[in-house]
């Protein structure tokens, strides 16, 4: 007897540990998130502090409408040597460093662009009296001193594969430039740490490239020790030309940078905390379920305690204390795991090309506190209802010699509540589906609606278990005979337990299905957006929107053999009444070759005669129709400010992603551009294009690293990038949900096997083989898992459909698609979960000692 008792205790411990796994995972994510963001935040702060350690005041130019871009495409700033000298004369100023900064994209040795697009910059190398620039300490070689020389940051040189003496190809704007690499420097620059590239020129060269001789983009003031930063900032401010430059103190800059780092991390933190929330949410069900089972198992023991004088409150307290202890233990382990996650996550992200500043792992005392508190509170809350149940056990039950079959408690109340909650949730979602704007209110409403629907369905699950499990039972009975029938009956025996067990899988699959459906639908939408109506074979864009493509250079593309048509697109913004629009200038004669236009009013000829064409949506927004004379104010060129321009609407076409909301001949648009440049080129090639033609196009455009020549497939792949991130997250969620679900199912099965010991013994005695017993447990597990999966997928699809409608206005090509393959896969995975979860309980059931089992009480 002692052995059996001991075994029960051990089984019980194992069960508690499994319950704890959900709490453990949840708290691990909480701890991991907190440690990760603290560590990164601290490291980033340190990096920017190092980077800004000598900066007392920074003076930067302010972009104004008039001097921003002159005809030569270079900026004019108010920061010049004269201003620098005046600042230098202020008391306390040690030095004024005059910086020139601009975009520069390097081609690596392999010809591919290096670094992350908008982070790629070039600065001037500013040697001090010793011929070196303290800000960029040399690692190798010397600083650039002539127009044909440059230096690179260490990380950049490494990524690009350049060595001292190599000729480096790069582009700032327009044509490709080459310079000789003479030096490699180290830097704490934030953008470089984050994956950008950094090139250094001598000051005159940098000025020629980006500004005008004698001008700077930033003045950095350093001070003698003991100088008041704030006061100096005010003094500097007084020297600046009004509205054309600003002064910021070093402390303020550091604060701004820190804020940006935090903002960047918060997206990651939110994702991780979502995981934590989900794990804990599911955990609540698991814990509640386990405690309910444990209490029914221990009811006689509890009744005995009541009989010998324990009060209800003491019973409740003892259960909650047990829960608290369990919560504390599992969150302590969760914390350790979380620290591991924080460290591992960083390694994983670094390996995947993310760039974080280096720094030690930061564990704040509050992190420990939060983690433990979350674990304990969640566990105790989850055990609260079961503890109330324990308190209701009457002392007299201790005296019952025969175990009274538990009268099934009525589900009427639960079902009513479930119907109500589900009804409200579904109503909210249906109501939302009539909107097409994803503003904050709607998103919050969508979240609330989704939550209500999900919770409602969880409450309703026992009700739904009967028809669904019975249906599944028909199949199992047909396929597996008596084992299948017994499995079905067992799954139906305690609808609450079955439902609670299935819930963990249901929650996981709701999320996963919802995200997958939205992700796939968005993918489809993106594909459409990228390629619908695009009959061109190649789209050529400048890597940076700012720079654009040189029109003269573009013409060369048309001469590439094999190119049938080359259509430049150049856009400009305008204001019309209260609304804004963007007019695309293009080559009207060639346009039909690259996109299918569908005119509902007017024709392309009418546009050719000097009018503009607008999309249906745009026309509706401004209340325009073909033949209207409209007045707009162009806003890209400073000289257009305040000037009204009359345009004639010559045609209206069905919305077209390629050409945008309105277009006209280039000749109409060009006068309103500060400098004519092409935003993109659409190219139609013979035979749908080939790698060779793409190469020739690249070559015609000077092989600039700024350039992107993309085929349809490239465009779709690019659009898919973000969706892939979502899908990866789905995979993470899937894995986590599955682990927790397996634990939940194992838990319930182990309990059921324990409770049914006698039945199992009898079945063995009257001739059900071990394999039959195993089959029975396994099928019960599979039926429960599939039940949870089907419910979850149903809810997920509904939520994805209703929530997806909100993308309507922002994402017109979004269209709900059901990825049947993936959904089928989820179902299959649920089946595997069922089989896996049953492994151990089934084994245990099959191995029960028959004679002991038959006699068990």
């Amino acid at each position, binding site marked *: 007897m002692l052995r059996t008792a001991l075994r029960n205790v051990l089984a019980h411990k194992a069960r508690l540990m499994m319950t704890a796994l959900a709490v453990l995972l949840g708290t691990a994510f909480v701890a991991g998130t907190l440690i990760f963001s603290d560590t990164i935040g601290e490291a980033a702060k340190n990096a920017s502090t190092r980077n800004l350690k000598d900066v007392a005041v920074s003076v930067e130019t302010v972009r104004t409408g008039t001097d921003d871009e002159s005809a030569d495409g270079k900026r004019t700033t108010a920061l010049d040597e004269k201003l620098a000298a005046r600042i230098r004369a202020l008391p306390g100023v040690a030095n004024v460093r005059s910086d020139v900064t601009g975009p520069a994209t390097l081609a690596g040795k392999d010809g591919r662009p290096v670094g992350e697009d908008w982070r790629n910059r070039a600065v001037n190398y500013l040697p001090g009296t010793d011929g070196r620039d303290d800000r960029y300490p040399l690692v190798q070689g010397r600083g650039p001193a002539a127009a044909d020389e440059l230096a690179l940051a260490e990380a950049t040189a490494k990524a690009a594969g350049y060595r001292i003496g190599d000729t480096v190809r790069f582009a700032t704007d327009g044509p490709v430039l080459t310079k000789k690499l003479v030096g490699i420097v180290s830097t704490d620059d934030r953008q470089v740490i984050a994956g950008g590239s950094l090139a250094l020129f001598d000051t005159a060269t940098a000025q020629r490239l980006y500004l005008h001789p004698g001008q700077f983009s930033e003045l950095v003031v350093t001070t003698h020790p003991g100088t008041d930063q704030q006061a100096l900032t005010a003094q500097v401010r007084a020297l600046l030309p009004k509205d054309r430059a600003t002064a910021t103190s070093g402390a303020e800059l550091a604060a701004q940078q820190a804020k940006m780092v935090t903002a960047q991390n918060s997206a990651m933190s939110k994702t991780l905390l979502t995981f934590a929330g989900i794990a804990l949410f599911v955990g609540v069900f698991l814990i509640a379920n386990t405690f309910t089972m444990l209490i029914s198992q221990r009811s006689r023991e509890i009744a005995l305690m009541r009989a010998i004088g324990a009060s209800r409150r003491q019973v409740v307290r003892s259960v909650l204390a047990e829960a608290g202890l369990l919560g504390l233990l599992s969150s302590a382990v969760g914390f350790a795991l979380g620290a591991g996650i924080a460290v591992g996550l960083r390694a994983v992200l670094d390996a995947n090309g993310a760039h974080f500043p280096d720094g030690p792992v930061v564990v704040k005392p509050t992190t420990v506190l939060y983690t433990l508190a979350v674990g304990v509170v969640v566990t105790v809350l989850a055990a609260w209802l079961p503890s109330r149940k324990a308190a209701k056990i009457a002392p007299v039950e201790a005296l019952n010699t025969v175990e009274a079959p538990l009268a099934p408690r009525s589900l009427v109340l639960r079902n009513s509540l479930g119907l109500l909650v589900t009804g409200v949730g579904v109503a909210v979602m249906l109501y939302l589906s009539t909107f097409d704007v994803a503003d904050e209110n709607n998103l919050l409403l969508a979240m609330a609606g989704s939550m209500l629907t999900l919770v409602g369905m969880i409450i309703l699950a026992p009700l739904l278990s009967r028809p669904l499990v019975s249906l599944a039972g028909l199949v199992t009975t047909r396929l597996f*005979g*008596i084992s299948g029938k017994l499995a079905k*009956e067992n799954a139906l025996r305690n609808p609450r337990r079955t439902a609670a067990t299935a819930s963990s899988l249901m929650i996981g699959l709701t999320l996963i299905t919802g995200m997958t459906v939205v992700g796939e639908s968005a993918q489809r939408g993106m594909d459409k957006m990228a390629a619908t109506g695009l009959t061109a074979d190649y789209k050529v864009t400048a890597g940076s929107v700012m720079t654009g493509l040189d029109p003269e250079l573009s013409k060369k593309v048309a001469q590439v053999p094999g190119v049938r048509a080359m259509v430049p697109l150049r856009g400009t913004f305008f204001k019309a009444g209260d609304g804004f629009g963007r007019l695309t200038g293009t080559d009207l004669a060639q346009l039909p070759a690259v996109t299918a236009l569908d005119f509902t009013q007017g024709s392309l000829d009418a546009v050719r005669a000097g009018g503009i064409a607008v999309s249906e949506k745009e026309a509706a927004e401004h209340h325009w129709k073909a033949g209207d004379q409209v007045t707009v104010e162009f806003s890209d060129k400073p000289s257009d400010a305040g000037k009204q321009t009359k345009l004639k609407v010559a045609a209206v076409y069905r919305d077209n992603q390629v050409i945008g909301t309105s277009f006209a001949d280039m000749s109409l648009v060009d006068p309103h551009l500060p400098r004519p440049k092409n935003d993109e080129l659409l190219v139609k090639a013979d035979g749908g294009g080939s790698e060779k033609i793409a190469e020739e196009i690249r070559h015609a455009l000077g092989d600039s690293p700024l350039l992107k020549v993309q085929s349809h497939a490239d465009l779709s792949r690019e659009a898919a990038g973000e969706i892939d991130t979502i899908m990866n997250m789905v995979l993470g969620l899937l894995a986590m949900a599955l682990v927790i679900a397996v634990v939940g199912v194992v838990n319930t099965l182990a309990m059921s096997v324990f409770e049914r010991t006698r039945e199992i013994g*009898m079945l063995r*005695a009257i*001739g059900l*083989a*071990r394999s039959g017993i195993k089959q029975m447990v396994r099928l019960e597990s599979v039926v429960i898992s599939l039940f949870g999966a089907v419910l979850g997928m149903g809810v997920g699809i509904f939520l994805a459909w209703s929530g997806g409608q909100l993308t309507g206005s922002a994402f017109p090509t979004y269209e709900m698609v059901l990825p049947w393959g993936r959904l089928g896969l989820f179902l299959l995975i649920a089946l595997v979960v069922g089989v896996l979860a049953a492994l151990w309980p089934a084994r245990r059931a099959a191995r029960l000692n028959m004679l002991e089992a038959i006699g068990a009480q």
Partner: protein
Amino acid sequence: MSHATAFPGSPAPARATAAVAARATDLSKVYGRDETRVVALDSVSVEFGKARFTAIMGPSGSGKSTLMHCMAGLDSISGGSARIGDVELASLGDKQLTRLRRDKIGFIFQAFNLLPTLTALENITLPMDIAGRKPDQQWLNNVIETVGLSGRLTHRPAQLSGGQQQRVAVARALAAQPEIIFADEPTGNLDSRSGAEVLGFLRESVRAMDQTVVMVTHDPVAAGYADRVIFLADGRIVEELHEPTADAVLDRMRLFDAKGRTS
């Protein structure tokens, strides 16, 4: 207890030569090892005749349940031989034993041991469902009629009284027409009236259906329904009674008790 004074004569040898449904020869069962070694059965040889109702009696720890478990293929044997019909149980693996129990043996347990999820009828046909064979409908009706469950076939065990549940268990054992039925204290959890009913069915099944029944019991009244009672003590058969009456059994038991106290 003072009224039982009769002492039945020696067993009638003619009955022992009839056809045999199960036979133990020098059957031993030993639990544990070395110091904890317990000999539950010590070279027991016994035959259970076909279409006979045999009761096994004996004090706690006498080995009566162990004998039944070994003979029914529920427990392994340590030595000797146990046969159901011609089948030597010692030579069978777990799978074959399970099959044997399924096809040739019926069980009735003290604690009813019905599946609460199945109806009375489903419980009755369970062994055949496990075997995947169709019940003989006529026989099934006959059995159900005999145990008087016609009106309750769709009830679940929880809706039946203890006596009714045990009648379901009896019907389950009879329905598959096994070669032998083992009953382990079938009346242990029943009041005397329900117990008498169940025992009546068992005796009736032997008499009218030629069923073979082996019953372990410690109740002399129950043993009184049997054709033959064997008494076990300390793992050996110590006595045998044919056509016993409850009083005769009681007397015999009292004798053992006295022996136990004096020895």
